[in-house]
Every structure is written in structure tokens, then in C-alpha cells.
């Protein structure tokens, strides 16, 4: 099955919140976040997109970092939401629902005003 390709503008708008949602499930690491997002139908999320976002979250204090060094294996940078991150996730979720609700309400509206240009105004 070919993965659906979403508009890059939409992805840019929604990716931050979706990454926070993935982190809300518990501590995880970079590739696991990308894989979870792909599994959820967002398509392939590249490291070049994901890590700058994670760096911004880390700088904002929304995520905590814990390097877990394996015995001989590669080190993993485990990321988890801080309290501030959890509050941010909840606030963004409410705001996003509000926004998408507004978009849906607009799209489903049956009383759309005519978008046709007014004509013959000079004949009245």
C-alpha cells in the first residue's frame, strides 16, 4: 500500500502536536516517534524534519532527555514529556480541536454566501 502524501503545509502545522501526542504515551526515542507517526498514516517523517522539532521542544522545556547507554549497543536518547510539555500538549489539543471544528463548521455550512461577483449594479 502506498503511503498517503499529505500537504507539506498541513504536516508542518500538525506535526508538532502529533509528536507531543506520541510522547504523551510514555518515554520514547527518535525513530520510534517517526515509526509511530508513519503507522498512524502521516507518511514517512524524516529525521531532518523530526529532530529540529524535538530540539525546539527540548529548548522550550517541554521534553526531558535521558540517554540510556546500552551494553555495547547504540545509545538511545529517550524523550519524555515534562509537566510543562504535558500542559502544552493539552492546551494545543484543545486549540486544535477548536480550530478544526471551526474549519468543519465552515465546510459543512449550507448557508454559504454567494461567491459570485455582483453584476449589473449600474443598471438599477
Amino acid at each position, binding site marked *: 500500500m502506498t503511503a498517503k502524501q499529505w500537504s507539506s503545509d498541513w504536516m508542518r502545522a500538525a506535526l508538532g502536536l502529533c509528536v507531543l501526542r506520541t510522547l504523551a504515551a510514555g518515554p520514547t526515542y*527518535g525513530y520510534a516517534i517517526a515509526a509511530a507517526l508513519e503507522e498512524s498514516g502521516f507518511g514517512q517523517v524524516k*529525521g531532518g524534519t523530526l529532530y529540529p522539532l524535538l*530540539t525546539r521542544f527540548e529548548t522550550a522545556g517541554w521534553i526531558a532527555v535521558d540517554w540510556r547507554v546500552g551494553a555495547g549497543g547504540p545509545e538511545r536518547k529517550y524523550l519524555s514529556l515534562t509537566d510543562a510539555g504535558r500542559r502544552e500538549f493539552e492546551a494545543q489539543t484543545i486549540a486544535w480541536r477548536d480550530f478544526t471544528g471551526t474549519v468543519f463548521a465552515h465546510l459543512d455550512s449550507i448557508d454559504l454566501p454567494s461567491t459570485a461577483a455582483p453584476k449589473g449594479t449600474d443598471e438599477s
Partner: protein
Amino acid sequence: MTEWNGRIMTTNTREAANEEWLESLIIELRLQGVNGTRIGDAIASAREFLVDSGAVAEDAFGSPKQYAAELNLPVEPDADQGGRGALVRGAIGMLGMFSVVQAVIPLVYGETLTVIAPVLAIMVVAFIAIACLPRLMPAMARMRKRSVFVTFLLGAALGLVTTVPGVLFVVWAGDRMALSLPALPVFIVGVVCLIAPALWGQLRHSITDDPIVVPGVTPSARSARRTRLFLVVINWLLVPVTVALCAVALLMDSFSR
């Protein structure tokens, strides 16, 4: 095996390409003035992702320059001062190089150093040009992936192209005296001006050493050694260039005598 850019890459080729990409990322982040701990973190994160995904770095992250810019990591407050310091060191080193090259022939033959006006003019022009060398550092550092040797040759060629005309002019117009100076003091001052900035740069680098700290790994990687070697070569570049110019000047002078 991975397909990238229309070609099939084996695991070994991919890993080699990824390591080269990570080294370029280190250079880009260094050029930005990011500290070693943050660089270590960024490198380890990228390496972890590449190992997990089996992706080619250029495909997963874009170019090292682009990715370094997108990471937008905090920059050390004295990064600009370091650049200005390198500019001053480059200028003093150039002054030393010119003095040594000018003084070496009179010193060898026990003569007085004569400096003519056109040579002074050429010195000033070349002095300004090569004092801007630190400005060229980013470009030179990015050429590093071609190999330390090629970069060294390019740097030396740049130095020769800029200064050989001055040496030839001295040989050609040797007796048009404008300023007469004792050769030995000029030579000694030149050597000090040549060596001191390089030594200062070397010590400063050692004192404010900022190793790349990869989480959980002792910083003794081959890439760190190569980067350090490259910085040492750049720091001391003017010394071998000066020796080469002195040899050229002496050789040409021996033909004209």
C-alpha cells in the same frame, strides 16, 4: 542494501557515507559556534536515527549545512570573538611571513635589507588579502571532506599565488632602494610574528578545549583526531608556506647572482 540517488548502496558504503556526512555536520556546527556537548548530542541523535532506520544520511536529514541551520542550536557567546582573534592572528602571521621572506636573502649573504616602495605596496595588498584568510575558513573547512592533503595543497597554492609575485619583484628590482634595514632584527621579528600567532592559536585551543562529547562514549574517535589534525594544519599553515617561499627566493636569487 539501500537505494539512494538512483544507486544501490551496500551496508558498508552507506555506513561510510553516513560517517562522512556526520563529520561534515560536526564542521558545520563548529562553524556556527555550537559547543562540543551540544554537537555530541546532535551527532549521537542523528547516528541513532540512521542506525535504526537504515537510511542514508543525506536522504534522511538533507545536506549537513541545511540540517545544521534547521537544528538552530544555541551558539557560544564568544564565537564571534574567536573569529576576530583568528583575523588578528592571520594578519600578524602574514606580517611575519613577509618579513622573513624579505630578510632571508640579505641575511644569508650578510647584506642590508632594502625594501623598495612597490614591494611595500604589494606587501600591503597581499597582507590585506591573506589577513582575510579566516573569512575563507568556512569554505576551506567545507573542502576538508576532499581530504586534509588536498585542502593543505589548495591553501599553500593560495599563499604562493598571492605572494610569489612579491618575491619575483624583489629579485627583479633588488637594487632600487627605498628603505634600508638591518636583516637580522627584521628576520627575528618576522620569525616571532610568524610563530607567535600560531602558538597562541594552538595554546588557546588547548586551554579552551571544547571536545565533542558523545553521550556515553569516551571522546577518542578517529573523526575527532582527523578534525583536530585539520585544525592544527590550518593553524600552522603559514610556517611551511614561509619556508617554501624562502627556498624559492634563495633559489631564484642564486640564479641571478
